[in-house]
């Protein structure tokens, strides 16, 4: 049944993005918000807005009962969770469906399988998808675990089965450290996630982070090619591209086929992303985890394929079968996204919420800026620092980087520190221009290049 009225259980730029997709499909919108977001762009754009609690996310955006009540009270028939907050909370997905509403996402059961990183690893192996060498499931016995660690070789990562998104990870460099960290890691995982289960993976040095976008309708699954997000700081992505400059075509075909196989094996419905590590030295890729939601960096995929992923999510949730066959998805040109955050890269990325005194948005061919900012808006201190995503497309990677530099020059957010100087410096860096990076490239680069990250030195 097509969706008629959609509740957006999120905030910020992704709430704005979802409202736009709904409006284009003729779907009415309900924006829930905390007391700190009354003046937000999403609240202004939506047909209706419902206050669901105080600023603290745990009392508003993460309050399942309040979100469901808002949906029922306003007569919404569907809920889109965006990313973060409740997007990968299987209990929330189940509660939405139990209230008779459409959940814009995969079944709660799919979220549970992929949310348990060990179950996801086992599902990947069963679908013939390569995983990082490590334990076959949870570590049940320390003696056996010790043997596996010695077999795969140190350093090894000890990871929480219930973790993900870079959380709950420890690295052991030798047997002694391994034995010391295991009990700590288990206690921490139990405290942080309510589940002390652990598993183990070999550390792949100098790997790239490459991920495959998929769309499924519960029967069929297609891929929309890959993104590379190797430029990370504290395991958070800062610069994302599509396609990856590092993948030969044959490897791209294999990688994308493996993602489709795994998504099909779990009868996946909606938009999802399978994350891999890719070792360009050996040409090997390894599945690490699946994200059962729309991702921050989805626009780069939209730019190279022409598919509106958020709109397709709404159509699939409304009961339509996939509207594309695999051969209709064509890879065209190159796209880059940079995350513009309210942080000062010259001062250790210190966050700087506050009032946007002026705003100049870049334009021209191949430029898109997904944001919740407007002049006069006060960015609250209670949520993450993402202000917007500057996305460019061009015929090839070199042209796209040039266009990104041009667009960054036009962007001006008055009144707040932003990460724009970081991206300007990256867009001129020889390694970035050559695509010669890996997931641990950016942090040492930041230590050596802090003098290039001052807003003043970049202003012409």
């Amino acid at each position: 049944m097509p969706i008629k009225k959609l509740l957006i259980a999120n905030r910020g730029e992704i709430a704005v993005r979802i409202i736009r997709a709904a409006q284009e499909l003729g779907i009415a919108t309900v924006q829930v918000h905390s007391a700190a977001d009354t003046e937000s762009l999403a609240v202004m754009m939506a047909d209706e807005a419902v206050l669901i609690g105080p600023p603290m996310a745990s009392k508003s955006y993460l309050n399942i009962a309040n979100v469901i009540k808002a949906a029922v009270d306003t007569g919404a028939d569907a809920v889109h969770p965006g990313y973060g907050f409740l997007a990968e909370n299987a209990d929330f997905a189940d509660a939405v469906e139990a209230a008779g509403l459409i959940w814009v996402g995969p079944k709660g059961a799919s979220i549970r399988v992929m949310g348990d990183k060990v179950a996801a690893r086992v599902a990947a192996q069963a679908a013939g998808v390569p995983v990082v060498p490590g334990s076959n499931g949870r570590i049940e016995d320390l003696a056996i675990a010790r043997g596996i660690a010695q077999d795969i070789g140190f350093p090894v990562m000890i990871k929480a089965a219930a973790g993900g998104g870079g959380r709950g990870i420890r690295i052991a460099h030798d047997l002694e450290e391994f034995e010391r960290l295991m009990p700590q890691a288990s206690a921490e995982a139990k405290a942080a996630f309510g589940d002390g289960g652990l598993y183990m993976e070999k550390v792949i040095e100098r790997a790239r982070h490459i991920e495959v976008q998929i769309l499924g309708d519960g029967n069929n699954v297609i891929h929309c090619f890959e993104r590379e997000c190797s430029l990370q700081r504290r395991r958070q992505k800062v610069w994302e591209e599509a396609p990856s400059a590092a993948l030969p075509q044959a490897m791209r075909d294999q990688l994308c086929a493996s993602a489709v196989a795994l998504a099909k094996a779990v009868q996946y419905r909606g938009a999802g992303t399978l994350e891999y590590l890719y070792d360009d030295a050996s040409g090997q890729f390894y599945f690490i985890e699946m994200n059962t939601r729309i991702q921050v960096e989805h626009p780069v995929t939209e730019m190279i394929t022409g598919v509106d992923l958020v709109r397709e999510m709404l159509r699939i949730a409304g009961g339509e079968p996939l509207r594309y066959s695999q051969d209709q998805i064509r890879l065209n040109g190159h796209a880059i996204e940079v995350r513009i955050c309210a942080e000062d890269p010259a001062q250790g990325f210190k966050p700087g919420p506050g009032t946007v005194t002026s705003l100049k948005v870049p334009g021209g061919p191949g430029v898109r800026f997904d944001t919740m900012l407007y002049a006069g808006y006060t960015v609250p201190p209670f949520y993450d620092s993402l202000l917007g995503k500057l996305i460019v497309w061009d015929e090839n990677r070199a042209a796209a980087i040039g266009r990104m530099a041009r667009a960054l020059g036009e962007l001006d957010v008055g009144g707040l520190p932003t990460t724009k100087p970081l991206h300007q410096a990256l867009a001129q860096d020889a390694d970035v221009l050559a695509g010669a990076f890996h997931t641990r490239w950016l942090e040492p680069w930041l230590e050596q290049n802090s003098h290039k990250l001052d807003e003043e030195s970049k202003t012409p």
Partner: protein
Amino acid sequence: MSKQILSPLPGTFYSKPAPDQPQFKSVGDAVAVGDVIGLIEVMKSFHEVVADQAGTITAFAAEDEEPVMAGQALIELS
């Protein structure tokens, strides 16, 4: 003359290092310059609030988990 310790940043004030741990300081406690009296969470990062004055705590002007503005009083000292 009463003295106050102000929040250096806007965000969420925490009077404890973690939900299941005791408060950094309680009413009646002595505070020395440099003591940590709480945390401010701003954009998902945590910053310690360090006392810039010494005294004895007479009252908390902000509760645990309360949203605060930069410059808002957190603690009253005598």
